[in-house]
């Protein structure tokens, strides 16, 4: 192991003083950062040929943990601006936190109780990406990049799965201090091909027999067989964060669901299919969104506008509809509005 090449950070403040000075000078201090004490190190690509004093700009592990807590409790929970602006700021600062973890080698292998702390930080990040994926998905790409968010989520998940396996080999008891069950289930629910399912089927029995994992496997198999109704039904019983992940993944399957229903119901004279019913299958919030999605896919509505018409010979087009990624759901929004964001991110909102 090339442990010697990693730096050990010595910075004890959320933002290294040097950086703060430079940013103040160039007017790069964000409104959330009213003084040095509330400034947080921002993300910047690691440059080659760093000076020997580099460790001064890297935060140590306790400071990183505190930084994350600060971002959650003092920035997100206070909700002084719109969710999109909060996201924009915290996304960047979390990225810098994760970078500090990487350069100190914390994601490589097992280092005792410290690894548990690292795992917790990554778990918080995972929930952060999922939470905002759900809440900001209706925004245009210029305001929220679902793609970028997804990339960061995937990266954290694979880092976590690696660290869990490290912990399992070295000290299995520590695994109980983590949320490995929840993350395994998340990884399965978000997996885009059957590889996730293959992996889940081979999990140890004690993991696989956990209700959450078992339900996630059943959901995933149902989706694999095209049984969306069953998958949606079981998903309603999942803990909230898993439900959000499921819905995010499901939105990618909407074209297939629509295609199957269209093929199953279309007739030469045209079959009317109620939008309200289709809304439930496609997991849209309103019949209006469903109608817009159908029209974008090249289908027509009946005179009353309450049904879509499936007619033999019409071809579906799956160019991106503005509704494709829309995960908005009134009931869940209301629930989320009543939950402190930090509680959700700490995994306490289940």
């Amino acid at each position, binding site marked *: 192991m090339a442990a010697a090449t990693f730096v050990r950070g010595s910075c004890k403040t959320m933002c290294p003083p040097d950086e703060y000075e430079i940013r103040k000078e160039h007017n790069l201090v964000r409104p959330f950062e009213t003084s040095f004490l509330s400034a947080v190190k921002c993300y910047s690509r690691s440059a080659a040929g760093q000076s020997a004093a580099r460790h001064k700009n890297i935060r140590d592990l306790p400071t990183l943990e505190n930084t994350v807590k600060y971002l959650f409790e003092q920035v997100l929970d206070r909700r002084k601006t719109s969710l999109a602006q909060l996201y924009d700021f915290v996304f960047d600062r979390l990225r810098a936190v994760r970078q500090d973890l990487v350069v100190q080698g914390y994601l490589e292998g097992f280092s005792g109780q410290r690894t548990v702390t690292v795992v917790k930080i990554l778990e918080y990040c995972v929930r952060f990406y999922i939470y905002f994926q759900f809440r900001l998905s209706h925004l245009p790409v210029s305001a929220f990049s679902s793609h970028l968010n997804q990339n960061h989520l995937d990266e954290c998940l694979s880092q976590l799965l690696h660290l869990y396996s490290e912990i399992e080999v070295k000290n299995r008891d520590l695994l109980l201090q983590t949320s490995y069950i929840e993350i395994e289930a998340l990884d399965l629910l978000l997996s885009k091909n059957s590889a996730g399912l*293959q992996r889940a089927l081979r999990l140890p029995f004690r993991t696989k027999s956990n209700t959450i994992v078992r339900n996630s496997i059943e959901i995933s198999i149902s989706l694999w*067989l095209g049984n969306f109704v069953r998958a949606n039904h079981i998903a309603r019983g999942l803990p909230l964060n898993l439900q959000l992940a499921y819905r995010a993944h499901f939105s990618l399957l909407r074209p297939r669901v629509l295609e199957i229903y269209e093929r199953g119901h279309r007739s030469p004279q045209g079959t009317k299919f109620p939008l309200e019913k289709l809304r439930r299958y496609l997991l849209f919030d309103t019949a209006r969104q469903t109608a817009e999605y159908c029209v974008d896919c090249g289908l027509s509505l009946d005179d009353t506008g309450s049904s879509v018409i499936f007619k033999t010979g019409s071809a579906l087009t799956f160019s991106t509809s503005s509704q494709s990624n829309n995960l908005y759901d009134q009931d869940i929004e209301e629930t989320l509005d009543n939950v402190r964001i930090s509680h959700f991110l700490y995994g306490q909102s289940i």
Partner: protein
Amino acid sequence: MATMNLNQYLREIQSSWESRSGTEVSELLSFNHPHVMSSKLTADGFEKSVERLVESPLDELVILHLRCLNCVNQQKYLEAYSEQSALVQAFTKLFQTQKEDNWALFIMYVISLDLRMFAIKADKELAKKGADKPGQTLEKAAECLMGLFRVCAADNRSSDEDTKRWGMLYLVNQLFKIYFRINKLHLCKALIRAIDASQFKDHFSLSQQVTYRYYVGRKAIFESDFKSAEKFLTYAFERCHKECRNNKRLILIYLIPVKMLLGHLPTPHLLRKYDLLQFSEVVQAVREGNLRRLNNALLQHDAFFIRCGVYLILEKLKVTTYRNLFKKVTLLMKTHQIPIEAYLEALKFMGVEDIDLDETQCIIANLIFENKIKGYISNSHNKLVISKQNPFPPLAAIM
């Protein structure tokens, strides 16, 4: 052989080398040959004798082989692996300098096989010591074999007879075995492309082609490309030597589920002959359209099915089972417009838990989507309207 002394061994390998007999040299460097039973080959100071009796560049290979043997005798597989790995690397260099010549291919075959075997044992040793990464030695072995592969693949100046490219498929098969074991299937892609592009594609030895198609077929299954999987695995099964019963059985573990999915159920005789009775309940359940029986059959042998990686295809047989069940219901109803409730009742009867009309409709829509039922669902009447002609086309005709 087992009592061969060092001088005999060295003289023999030197003279085989001089007569460029690839098979003879390969045997004398193989761990599947009785000379490895002799305790006299690794006596102290064997290096001196080698230097005296064996000429360069063969001497280096022989010394590394005997060192490796020494480690194996002491069951130190980590060290055995590194000696063998050094041997393979030394051979790679040497092989590269033998222009327009491929008599040493046989040597390459045995040393790469042994390399993989020692890597497996070394990984087991590491696992006992609590290693970080399972399969790390195998991964290194794969890199080592890639070195050989590059030498073979790059040899495009020699005549068809003398080209080292004849060695490509053997190496690809060894690499497949490693990638499947360490679960890195994505690495197979480049190798498949190289073989597909090779002019010798259909002229490699039959045994190598059988192995190759077995793995390519399994990879196709993993990618849900069942039609190709059937093609590759059928080739492998039909051409596999009939004495190799265990290999035929391994092929069938994948071929049977794929065939079932495409509408061909195996005979009880076949399952008995190859000791694959784990599948027989599944077959019966699918044939009868009996979901309850299918679920029980999957549950009963799930460890076996999951270990082999066929569990998900067998799950997919549920769709075929729905089709068979619904066909029975439709025949009973004797009409072309069947209420969805009839199918719902049948599913409930089969013990499908908390199922409702919505889900039944979804299952039927899928069957229509996959062309397994010809017809459409009338949502307003809650009925399935089936085609007057052949509403349940045979699966083999659709896929």
